[in-house]
C-alpha cells in the first residue's frame, strides 16, 4: 500500500522526521519496505509561466519558450509538444539535479547550445522531476501557483510503500495508516467531514435491494446521485490516485477508487439507467452463468461466485469486478453507488476460480468490517455531489442481515503482564488503546477494562489481540528482555535425532559426502531402478496438483536420488565419489498418512584416478561398500550376516542382504549394469541401503558393557589352508573363532591359480590367541591350533598348504 505523507497529513499531524516515522511504523507491524522521496533534489527548480513560444531558427521539432520567473525572464530550447502560453510550469535552472529522461539517471543540468541556440535551463517533464515515468510532455502546474516560488513547496512529497499483513485490511487505506501514525506518535486523528445535502426525492422511489444470500452478503448499502456530469476528476485527486498506482478514468470512477484508498472500502458505481426493474439482487451465480466484466472479458461463473443482479441479469461479480452492461459512460446521468460487505471466503474462492484479482477483491478477501460500508458510502456520496455536480436522493439503502451484537473484549493489567512481561497500569492501558480509537470502559465487577471494537477494525477478537495493540503503541523495542525461568521439561526428546546424527558422522568419517535430494519423482524414474523397467515396491502416493510431470509421486526409494546425483557429478568429471543420503521414503497406508520410513542409501563409484604421484590406489569394489556397512554395524555393537540377495537392482551374485539376528536391515552390492545404464553411469558402482528405523531398534537392544583389555600378552599364529572353492570364508572363519582363547581371526591372503590344484583355493589366516588371566604357553596355543586344523579338515576337507 502506497501512502503519501501529504495525504496522511489530511488526517494527522506529522512532525517527526520521515525516517523515524517509517521505523516506528515498521516496529508497529506496518513494514515500510520502500521510501520514495520526491523533490529532494529540486534546489534549483521553481514555478514559471510561459510568456511566449517561438519557433527554433534551425530545428523544426524544437521551439523556444520564454519563461517568466518573477525576477527575470529566461528563454530556453524545448522539444515538448504541449507548450502553451500562459501555462504554469516547473522550470529548472543550470545547476539543478534532474532525472535524465532517457537513461533515468540523476544528472546535473549544464548550460548547453542546442542547434546553435544557447539554453540555460529546462522546462521539466514529470519523469525529469522524478514524480512519475511520464516523459510525453512537460508538467503543467495548477494556475494558482505563485511564480518564482520553489516547486518543492508545492509538489515535494514522501511516499511510503507499506507491506500490510493479511489481518489488517483496514490499513489498506490512507485513513487506516493515519490512525496508526496518530497512535504511535501521540497525535490526534482527524476524521473528515461526511455531511452533504440531500434532495427531496426519496431513494426508495429509485431502487430496492434484496439479498438472497445473506450468509455471503452481511450488508448492502447504496445511494443514488442524480444529474451527474461525467468528466475528469480534479487534478489533486488524479495525482493522489496515480501516486498510489491507480489510473484516473472519470470523476465518478475516480471517486470510488479514491474513497477505497482513503477508507479501505471498495465501492462500485452503476449507471442507474442500466439497472432493470429498479432492483438490486444479491445472489449466488447459476452454474455456468456468463457475463462480461468491465475489462471486456467473458466470464463463466460457478455457484462459488456471488453476483449482483438486477431484475433481469447479472450486473457485477460481487466484490471482484463490475459488469460491462452497467458501466459508467460519458452519457451516464444517474449513479447507483454500492458500498457493501461480502463474505471473505466467497470472494477469495470466486477470485481464484475466475483467476481475477482486483483492488476490491484483495480487500474483501482479507475481511472488512460491515460497519465500514455505510461510512465510506457517505464519503463517496458527498464527493460525487461535490465533484460530479449531482443531487443526492434522500436517504440511503441499508440492508444489513449480518448485523451482529457487539462483544466488548476485556483486558487487564494482569493479562498484559502475563503475556508481555511488563507491568502497565490500567490508566496507561486505557490511554494506549484510546490512542488507537478503541473505546474503553471499566468493568467494576472484574476490574478489567472492556473495550469496544470500532467499525474500522476487524482483527480484534480476544484479549491477546488487545495485548498486541498495547505492545504496538508502547513499542516492541520497549518490551524487556528476560531469559526463560520456567521449569525444564521432562522426557528426552526424539531419540532418532542423536542416532541419525551418529550415523551421519560415521559415514562422513568414512569419507562420504552427504547429499539431500527431492522426495518427489515420477513413475519412469522409479521404474529405471529395475533392470527390466518394472515398478518394484509399493504403488507410490501421488500429488494431486504436481508442479511438473517430473515431480508427481512421493518416493518409495532413495536409490534413484543418489544414482542421479552420482551420474550428474560424473559428468562434471568427478571421480572417486562416495556419497550418501539419509531421508524418508513414503509407504502408503490405508486411510492414513503414509509410513515415513527413514532410510540410508550410499554409493561408491569404482573410478579411482591415478592422480597421486606416490602410490597407485586400487579400484573400489563390493568389499569397499561391505566394509562401510560392517563398520557402521559394529559401531552399534551389531554383527551382521550377509546372505545372497535377490534384489533386482543389484547384480546377480554380487548383492547381499544384510541381516542381524535373522532380520533383514538392508542390502549391499554392485548395482545391476542395466540399472546403472538407466542412469547413464558407465562404470561399476556399489550401493548400500539400510533401514535406519530397524537399525536403531536393533542397536537399542544391545546393552553396552565395557570390557577390560587383557593384561597378558597375545600371540599370533598363521595357517594357510587349501580348501574347496565352494567353501565360503565365513564358514571357515566361524569354525576358527568358535575355539576358546581365539580372540581374533584375520584373512590376510586369498589365492587361487598357479600352484593351486583346480577347484581349490588357498586362504591364509592369522589367528590371535589370548587369555584374560595368564600368559599363554606355546603348548597351550599349539594344542588349540592343532584342534582347529583337525576340525577344518573333517568339516571342509581342508589341508594345510606348506
Amino acid at each position, binding site marked *: 500500500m502506497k501512502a503519501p505523507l501529504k495525504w496522511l497529513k489530511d488526517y494527522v499531524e506529522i512532525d517527526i522526521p520521515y525516517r523515524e516515522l517509517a521505523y516506528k511504523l*515498521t516496529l508497529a507491524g506496518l513494514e515500510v519496505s520502500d521510501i520514495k522521496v520526491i523533490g529532494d533534489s529540486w534546489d534549483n527548480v521553481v514555478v514559471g509561466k510561459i510568456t511566449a513560444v517561438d519557433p527554433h531558427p534551425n530545428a523544426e521539432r524544437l521551439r523556444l519558450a520564454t519563461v517568466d520567473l518573477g525576477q527575470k525572464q529566461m528563454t530556453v530550447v524545448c522539444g515538448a509538444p504541449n507548450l502553451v502560453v500562459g501555462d504554469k510550469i516547473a522550470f529548472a535552472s543550470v545547476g539543478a539535479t534532474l532525472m535524465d529522461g532517457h537513461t533515468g539517471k540523476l544528472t546535473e543540468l549544464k548550460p548547453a547550445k542546442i542547434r546553435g541556440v544557447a539554453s540555460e535551463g529546462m522546462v521539466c517533464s514529470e519523469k525529469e522531476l522524478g514524480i512519475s515515468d511520464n516523459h510525453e510532455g512537460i508538467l503543467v502546474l495548477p494556475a494558482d501557483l505563485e511564480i518564482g516560488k520553489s516547486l518543492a513547496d508545492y509538489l515535494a512529497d514522501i511516499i511510503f510503500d507499506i507491506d500490510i499483513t493479511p489481518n489488517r485490511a483496514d490499513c489498506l487505506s490512507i485513513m487506516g495508516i493515519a490512525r496508526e501514525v496518530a497512535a504511535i506518535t501521540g497525535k490526534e486523528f482527524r476524521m473528515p467531514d461526511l455531511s452533504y445535502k440531500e434532495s427531496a426525492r426519496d431513494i426508495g422511489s429509485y431502487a430496492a435491494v434484496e439479498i438472497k444470500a445473506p450468509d455471503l452478503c452481511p450488508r448492502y448499502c447504496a445511494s443514488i446521485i442524480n444529474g451527474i456530469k461525467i468528466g475528469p476528476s480534479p487534478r489533486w485527486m488524479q495525482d493522489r490516485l496515480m501516486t498510489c498506482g491507480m489510473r484516473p478514468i472519470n470523476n465518478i470512477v475516480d471517486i470510488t477508487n479514491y474513497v477505497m484508498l482513503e477508507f479501505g472500502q471498495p465501492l462500485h458505481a452503476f449507471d442507474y439507467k442500466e439497472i432493470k426493474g429498479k432492483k438490486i439482487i444479491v445472489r449466488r451465480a447459476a452454474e455456468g452463468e456468463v457475463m462480461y466484466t468491465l475489462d471486456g472479458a467473458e466470464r463463466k461463473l460457478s455457484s462459488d461466485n456471488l453476483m449482483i443482479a438486477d431484475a433481469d441479469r447479472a450486473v457485477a461479480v460481487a466484490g471482484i469486478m463490475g459488469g460491462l452492461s452497467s458501466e459508467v459512460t460519458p452519457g451516464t446521468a444517474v449513479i447507483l453507488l454500492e458500498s457493501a460487505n461480502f463474505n471473505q471466503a466467497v470472494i477469495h474462492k470466486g477470485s481464484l476460480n475466475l483467476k481475477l484479482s482486483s483492488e476490491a477483491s484483495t480487500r474483501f478477501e482479507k475481511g472488512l468490517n460491515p460497519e465500514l460500508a455505510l461510512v465510506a458510502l457517505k464519503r463517496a456520496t458527498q464527493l460525487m455531489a461535490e465533484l460530479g455536480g449531482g443531487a443526492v436522493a434522500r436517504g440511503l439503502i441499508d440492508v444489513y442481515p449480518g448485523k451482529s451484537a457487539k462483544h466488548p473484549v476485556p483486558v487487564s493489567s494482569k493479562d498484559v503482564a502475563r503475556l508481555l512481561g511488563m507491568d502497565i497500569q490500567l490508566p496507561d492501558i486505557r490511554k494506549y488503546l484510546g490512542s488507537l480509537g478503541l473505546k474503553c470502559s471499566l468493568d467494576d465487577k472484574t476490574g478489567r477494562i472492556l473495550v469496544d471494537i470500532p467499525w474500522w477494525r476487524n482483527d480484534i477478537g480476544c484479549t491477546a489481540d488487545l495485548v498486541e495493540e498495547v505492545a504496538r503503541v508502547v513499542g516492541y523495542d520497549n518490551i524487556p528482555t528476560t531469559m526463560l525461568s520456567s521449569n525444564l521439561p521432562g522426557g528426552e526428546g526424539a531419540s532418532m535425532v542423536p542416532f541419525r546424527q551418529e550415523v551421519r558422522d560415521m559415514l562422513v568419517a568414512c569419507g562420504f559426502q552427504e547429499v*539431500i535430494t527431492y522426495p518427489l519423482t515420477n513413475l519412469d524414474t522409479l521404474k529405471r531402478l529395475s533392470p527390466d523397467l518394472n515398478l518394484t515396491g509399493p504403488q507410490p502416493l501421488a500429488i494431486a496438483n504436481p508442479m511438473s510431470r517430473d515431480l508427481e509421486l512421493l518416493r518409495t526409494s532413495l536409490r534413484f536420488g543418489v544414482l542421479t546425483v552420482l551420474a550428474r557429478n560424473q559428468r562434471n568429471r568427478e571421480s572417486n565419489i562416495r556419497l550418501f543420503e539419509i531421508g524418508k521414503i513414503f509407504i502408503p497406508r490405508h*486411510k492414513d498418512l503414509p509410513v515415513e520410513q527413514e532410510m540410508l542409501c550410499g554409493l561408491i563409484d569404482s573410478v579411482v584416478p591415478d592422480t597421486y604421484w606416490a602410490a597407485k590406489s586400487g579400484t573400489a569394489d563390493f568389499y569397499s561398500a561391505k566394509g562401510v556397512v560392517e563398520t557402521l554395524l559394529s559401531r552399534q555393537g551389531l554383527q551382521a550376516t550377509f546372505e545372497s540377495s535377490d534384489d533386482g537392482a543389484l547384480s546377480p551374485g554380487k548383492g547381499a542382504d544384510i541381516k542381524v539376528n535373522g532380520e533383514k536391515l538392508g542390502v549391499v552390492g554392485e548395482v545391476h549394469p542395466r540399472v546403472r545404464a538407466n542412469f547413464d553411469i558407465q562404470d561399476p558402482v556399489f550401493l548400500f541401503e539400510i533401514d535406519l528405523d530397524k537399525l536403531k531398534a536393533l542397536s537399542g537392544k544391545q546393552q553396552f558393557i565395557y570390557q577390560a583389555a587383557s593384561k597378558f600378552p597375545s600371540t599370533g599364529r598363521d595357517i594357510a589352508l587349501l580348501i574347496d572353492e565352494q567353501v565360503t570364508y565365513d564358514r571357515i572363519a566361524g569354525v576358527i573363532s568358535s575355539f576358546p582363547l581365539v580372540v581374533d581371526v584375520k584373512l590376510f591372503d586369498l589365492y587361487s591359480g598357479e600352484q593351486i590344484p583346480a577347484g581349490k583355493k588357498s586362504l591364509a589366516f592369522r589367528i590371535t590367541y589370548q587369555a584374560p588371566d595368564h600368559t599363554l604357553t606355546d603348548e597351550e596355543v599349539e594344542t588349540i591350533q592343532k584342534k582347529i586344523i583337525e576340525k577344518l579338515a573333517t568339516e571342509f576337507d581342508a589341508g594345510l598348504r606348506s
Partner: protein
Amino acid sequence: MLSQVDEVASSAHADLQKVTGLDELEAWRVRYLGRKSKLISILRSLAALPVDERRDIGARANQVKNQLEASLAQKKEELDSSVNLSLTRESIDISLPGQPYHLGRLHPTTKTTREICDIFISMGFQIAEGPEVEWEYYNFEALNMPAEHPARDGFATLWVDYKTETGARPMLMRTHTSPVQIRTMEQVKPPIRVIAPGRVYRYEATDATHEWMFSQVEGLAVDKNITMADLKGTLFEFARRLFGTDRKCRFRCDYFPFVEPGVEIAIDCFMCGGKGCRLCGNSGWIEILGAGMVHPEVLRGCGIDPEVYSGFAFGMGVERIPILRFGIDDIRHFYSNDLRFLRQF
C-alpha cells in the same frame, strides 16, 4: 697400577680409532668411562691406597680420564657431522604434494540445522519431529487457519492425491514445521520446550531465490508465566550466538495466525552494518525469524488452558542462514547436489 692405567689409555685410544658409528661410540664410552669400567674402578679404589701411591696414580688416572672424555667429545662431533652430511644427501623434495585423504562432509543444510539446534539445546530445548506428509488439520486448522483464511495464500500447498469418503482432500506435504507444535502439545503437557527441525514443501516455481523444498526449525515453549520478554531474551540470545555478539536485533510486530502478539526478528546487516546494501535490500536489517506468543485458540485446541498457561513459538528458514553468511547467489545449489558446491562447506 700405573701401568694398568696406561694400558687402559692405549687400548682406549686404539679402540676409538675403530669406532664408526654413534652406537659403537656409546659402547666405547660404557667400556672405558662407564661406571663399571676399569678406569673408574681404579679411581674409586684410590681411597684405599697409601698416600704416595694415591697421589701419583690418582693424578695419572684423572689425566687419562680427562683425555678420554675429550677424545669422546671430539669423536662424537666427527660422527655427528658425518651423519648430518649423509642425511643431507638423502634430502627430499618437500614441495611435492602430500598424500590426499578422502574427507567426507555433511550437507550445508545439515550443518546449519545442527548449529541452530545446538544453541537451543544449550537453553534446555529438546528436539521433536513430525511427519512430512501431514493432515490439513495439523498444517492449517489447528494453527488457526481454517479453510479460506487469507493467510493460507502465503502457503502454496502440494496436496496429496487422497480423498476421503466425503470427497475432501485432507492430506498434504507440510508447508511449514509448525504442525509439530500441535502434535507436541497434544502429546506432552507443559512444561514444554522443543525445537523441531525438518523439511517443508511449497507449490512454487523455482528460481535463484525460490525453492519448492527447503528446511525450517520450529520452536515452542509453553508453561505458566512465559512472556514475550522471555521470547525476546531467548531469541536475541540465539541470534547473537549464531551471528555474533556484536549484532543488533530488531523486534517488530508481525502477523502469523497461530500467534498473538506476533513478532518478526531481524538482525542488523552484517555486510553493511545497518547502512543499507544489496544483501539487506537497503533496509539495514535482515529478517531471520518469525515468532509470537502462542494464540489462545491454538492452546485451547490442544487441550491447554490459555488462562493458566502461555507460551511462545518461533520458526526460521535454515538455507537462508548459509545463503546470507556465505553470499550464496542461488538457493537451487542446495539440492542440485553438485559436489563442487557441497565440498565448500
